[in-house]
């Protein structure tokens, strides 16, 4: 990818005031960590490659960063979709955010506003397949008996310490008070064990149904390697298959859950 | 600040479950306002009562709980001079306080404490005292007031300035009347502008202004201020103008607490644990704390 153009564009938007901050990635001893550039002269720190798995759109929910808007975000297609979706959910306005479009296929897409981002997504990335490894794994798990499946997930969720790194990493988890923190009544057990872990992980995934752009940041953030993307992709696949919706391509779109069609399938309803 | 080994020695029950509360029953339940309730709690075991009153000094707090709902920290609102029961006053705000409100007379709740430090009232003997309180912050001061009224001869003049947003928000209304009638207490009540009723006879205005107007003398006097952070902040100025030294003005911090015993780590202000080093602080101490943590 043309990292020089990324750096030039970042410097340019900072220099001419189109953005107050660029949020992208930098290298720290081999790790890819977020970079917050406010000075055009530091734009040279920026880089992008496949190791940059965090979703920088998550920083839009951070109160302290609001004063740096408009902010330019180094965004791969999944992150661009998050941004379009955030606009659809009225969490960001067109003037709040710019995109420096990058991708894992080495293309660099330049400086985009949200409209141009949506246009680019529809033109070039309309058919992003679900991660084939995940799809394969989902097929394997789906082929198990219910007992085997519950055994598999018992083992996975048992590791959860309820650090909520998955929630923090997700740009769509922007509620000021999460359902897991509501205690009148206590919907989800607070103990890092058993049914509380099950309920938390299931409800986290479900609250992102029709809102997940499969960026993978939640799973990448999980210290214990819980395969959260399996849940997210199952939901994303169903949203697409059942309702024909791909999320994050239209800033005017109604939310998937929250809208309906009289033609929605109901084979399972008696 | 290093741990106080003497205190640790005195309160620690060796080999016990530090977090195990005792069970107490509700002897009386009073609605102070539409959302503030006072419970009078009775000890079930004489040894527990004796142990409690051996430690208890005004200003300390406890953890009141209902199994299944949890426990919450708030002050002990009755004085050690009333040594057969304890009272607590709280606003119905969340899960625990709602569960406490749902309890009826005769039913049980759990209690741990007393915890924390206390107002050094023994040092105040012979001095005048000015109490300044706002809203739901009267309870900790009420314990001090009754403690002093129960030992009235040992102290000088008492002035109480108490305010709330509206007349309906004033707590301990029947006791305010008692104090009003006493010749040895000067009680000044106030409500925020707009919070008065047609027959309101007290002051109208914010507590700091009313304090300024009342202008109690600072000579041989200590001040005790309890209220929301914003009230405390604006009360410091009139106190200063009236020449109250910061070392003779006291307040309590009401930080969020869970354990109450210096473990759970959430009540800290700088390196101090409010649950251990407080909740009572002088304004002098308060000013030396990191203000951003208050």
């Amino acid at each position, binding site marked *: 990818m043309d990292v020089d153009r990324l750096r030039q564009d970042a410097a340019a938007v900072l220099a001419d005031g189109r953005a107050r901050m660029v949020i992208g990635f930098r290298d720290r001893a081999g790790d890819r960590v*977020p970079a917050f550039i406010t000075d055009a002269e530091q734009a040279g720190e920026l880089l992008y490659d496949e190791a940059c798995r965090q979703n920088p759109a998550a920083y839009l929910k951070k109160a302290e960063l609001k004063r740096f808007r408009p902010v330019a975000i180094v965004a791969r297609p999944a992150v661009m979709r998050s941004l379009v979706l955030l606009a659809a959910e009225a969490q960001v306005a067109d003037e709040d955010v710019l995109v420096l479009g990058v991708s894992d296929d080495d293309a660099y897409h330049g400086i985009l506003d949200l409209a141009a981002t949506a246009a680019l997504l529809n033109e070039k990335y309309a058919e992003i397949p679900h991660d084939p490894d995940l799809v394969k794994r989902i097929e394997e798990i789906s082929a198990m008996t219910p007992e085997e499946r519950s055994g598999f997930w018992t083992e996975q969720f048992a590791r959860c310490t309820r650090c909520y790194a998955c929630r923090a990493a997700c740009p769509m988890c922007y509620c000021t008070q999460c359902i897991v923190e509501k205690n009148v009544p206590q919907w989800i057990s607070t*103990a890092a064990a058993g049914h509380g872990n099950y309920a938390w992980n299931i409800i986290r995934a479900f609250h992102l149904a029709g809102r997940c752009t499969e960026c993978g940041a939640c799973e990448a953030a999980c*210290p214990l390697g819980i395969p959260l993307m399996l849940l997210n992709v199952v939901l994303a696949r169903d949203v697409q298959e059942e309702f024909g919706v791909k999320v994050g391509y239209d800033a005017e779109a109604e939310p998937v859950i929250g809208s309906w069609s009289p033609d929605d399938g109901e084979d399972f309803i008696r | 600040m290093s741990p106080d080994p003497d205190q640790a020695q005195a309160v620690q029950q060796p080999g016990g479950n530090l977090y195990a509360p005792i069970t107490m029953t509700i002897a009386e339940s009073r609605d102070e306002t539409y959302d503030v309730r006072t419970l009078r709690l009775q000890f079930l075991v004489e040894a527990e009562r004796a142990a409690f009153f051996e430690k208890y000094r005004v200003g300390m707090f406890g953890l009141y709980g209902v199994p299944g709902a949890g426990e919450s920290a708030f002050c002990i609102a009755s004085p050690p001079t009333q040594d057969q029961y304890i009272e607590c006053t709280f606003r119905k705000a969340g899960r625990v306080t709602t569960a406490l409100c749902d309890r009826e007379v005769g039913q049980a709740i759990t209690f741990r404490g007393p915890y924390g430090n206390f107002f050094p009232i023994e040092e105040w003997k012979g001095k005048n005292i000015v109490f300044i309180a706002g809203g739901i912050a009267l309870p900790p001061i009420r314990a001090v007031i009754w403690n002093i009224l129960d030992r009235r001869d040992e102290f000088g003049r008492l002035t109480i300035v108490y305010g709330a947003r509206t007349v309906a928000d004033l707590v301990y209304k029947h006791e305010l009347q008692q104090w009003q009638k006493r010749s040895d207490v000067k009680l000044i009540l106030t409500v925020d502008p707009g919070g008065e009723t047609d027959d309101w006879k007290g002051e109208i205005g914010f507590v700091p202004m009313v304090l300024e107007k009342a202008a109690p003398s600072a000579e041989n006097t200590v001040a005790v201020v309890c209220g929301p952070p914003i009230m405390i902040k604006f009360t410091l100025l009139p106190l200063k103008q009236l020449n109250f030294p910061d070392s003779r003005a006291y307040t309590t911090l009401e930080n969020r607490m869970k*354990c109450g015993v210096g473990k759970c780590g959430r009540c800290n202000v700088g390196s101090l644990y409010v649950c251990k080093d407080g909740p009572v602080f002088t304004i002098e101490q308060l000013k030396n704390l990191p203000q951003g943590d208050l």
Partner: protein
Amino acid sequence: MKLIDANKLTALAAALARAGYRVVAPIEDSGVVRLKEWAEGAAIRTDAVPVNSAKDFLFPPSEIIGRWDLDGDDFTAKEVEPDAPKTVLLAVRPCDAAALALLDTVFNWDYKDDFYNARRQAVTVVPMVCTAADEQCFCTSVGGAPDATAGADAMLRPADGGTRFILEPMTDKGNALLDAAGSALAEGEAAADPPVEIARRFDVEAVTEWLSRNFESDLWPALSLACLGCGACAYACPTCHCFDIQDEATRRESVRLKNWDSCGFGLFTLHAGGHNPRPDQTARWRNRVMHKFSYIPERFKLLGCTGCGRCARVCGAGMSMSEVCRLIADETKKAPTHES
């Protein structure tokens, strides 16, 4: 000296398990090496720093501290005993063991937490000298060392080029463990491998000194920019000990739980009245740094950080305590500061 071949650590684990120890060791689980209870067949991974710390087995993520039978509006308290099985923490790291001094202090400095103490007494700590380190390791910057023995009951020292370990007892508990290991250990001679060299990354005294003067500083927003406010760092940290107390109930029973909590969460300090002393992530992150490098040293004459680097390894947002400390230390060199 007592020796064991590097590829026979599981035999040692098996012998200790037979002798009645719960064996906790670094084991790979779904692609992540973490400290967990060893079971027959599990390989012990000494080549990676586990994501979690030994604290999990002294101060678990959730623990019952109260229990009641419920019957309508009535309740009856039941006794709660700490769950403290005899445990060996095998092939943990010196930075795990170094954290015990602080945990011991916090849970005993005034009131004594017997849940912690019961577990602590039941634990035999066997750290392994580190002969490798990664970019996140910085124990030498906070007074530790890859071969430090503080908190250890016995040390596992890689020897003869990593082909075997010397198991060296340091305490009575360590001696008992060696006895229990029996024939799993061989008598012999071996040359201990040198510990890894870990460069010092910052001057911790300069950091503590700067912190004592800079509760208010323009640096804090910059240092905390990347933090998104989860609890991953606190939960991975061997010294973080903050907890929440929560009740859980059915209609017939309730339990009171001590759950891990983190000062990084927004609700941590939120008052019932709505006021929050630490309203943003800048204030929360400042508290985390202050707590480890200023408040704990001031209060307990200890550091709140053992330089294990776990917080940085698990952080999904690239926050790093050693980087922050280095930036703070740089600050002290940079600006001639004036007293505030």
